């Protein structure tokens, strides 16, 4: 495309860019304002729903309850009470009190009641007598 407009120098070209494009593309102010209003509405809408840095009450309740249950289980399972554990000394067998022989099936005279003994499922007691 031939023309008789002298080529401007670089500095003039740089300054011409702004008016060349500003005058060519002019938006509708009402449309731009509508976009701004929609942005403000969207932002306020999202704010009412979002509460940053706060946990819902049921989450706190759930976590606390879970911790309490876990602590209770640990205490029951491992005896973790916080008190020093006392050593249990096993008694020697000869110091244990002698188990009395069975006297569950005695008759009125204090003798073994054979009939009842035979109905008893514990055989060795019967035979021991």
């Amino acid at each position, binding site marked *: 495309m*031939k023309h*008789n407009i002298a*080529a401007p120098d670089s500095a003039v070209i740089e*300054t*011409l860019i702004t008016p060349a494009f*500003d005058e060519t593309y002019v*938006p509708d102010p009402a449309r731009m304002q509508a976009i701004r209003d929609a*942005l403000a509405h969207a932002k306020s809408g999202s704010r009412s729903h979002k509460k940053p840095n706060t946990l819902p009450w049921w989450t706190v309740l759930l976590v606390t309850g879970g911790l309490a249950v876990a602590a209770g289980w640990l205490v029951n399972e491992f005896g973790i009470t916080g008190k020093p554990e006392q050593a249990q000394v096993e008694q020697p067998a000869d110091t244990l009190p002698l188990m009395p022989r069975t006297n569950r099936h005695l008759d009125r005279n204090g003798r073994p009641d054979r009939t009842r003994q035979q109905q008893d499922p514990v055989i060795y007691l019967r035979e021991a007598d």
Partner: protein
Amino acid sequence: MTVDTDPRTLLQRYCEQDDQTAFNRFYRGQSGRLWGFLRSRGCHEEAAYDLVAEAFSRFIRVVCKDPASPVALLYRIAINLHIDSHRRDTAAPVTVDSRLLDSATAPESSEYHQLQKQLLRHYMNQLPRDEQNLLLMRYWIGLTHREIAEVVDMPEGTVRRQAAAAIHKIRTMWQADET
């Protein structure tokens, strides 16, 4: 009382004090040019409005994390959106008024200035898309070389050299058509 129009200051007030008036000023200062920028990049009119809305919507969500270069951030978002949605668009051809070509002879006349601007847009349109974007961001939007480097993810020195080279190309094309 002076009204602050520096985009960075306005966005700082918006982010730190939730100053909606500051954001409105920022929006009024940037939205029209952003729309024009997208139109000049080949975006259709309605699509340009949609992209402005989407770009600002995303901008609001992220700007307060780093409000150091808000305009650069806005254009980075808009350019990426435009690339994603209008990959096949090309910049609309620039027509030069033939009547002006015949009549504009006096260098101080309004026709002459009008023709200068039309020719400039015509020659800019001949440049590769990246160089067009670079010149528009530098001399129309007013971003610094450093901010453009952030937008296009290139070293600042490369941006500076490419901008100078693009201006030189325009001059060369212009001179080649001079009678």
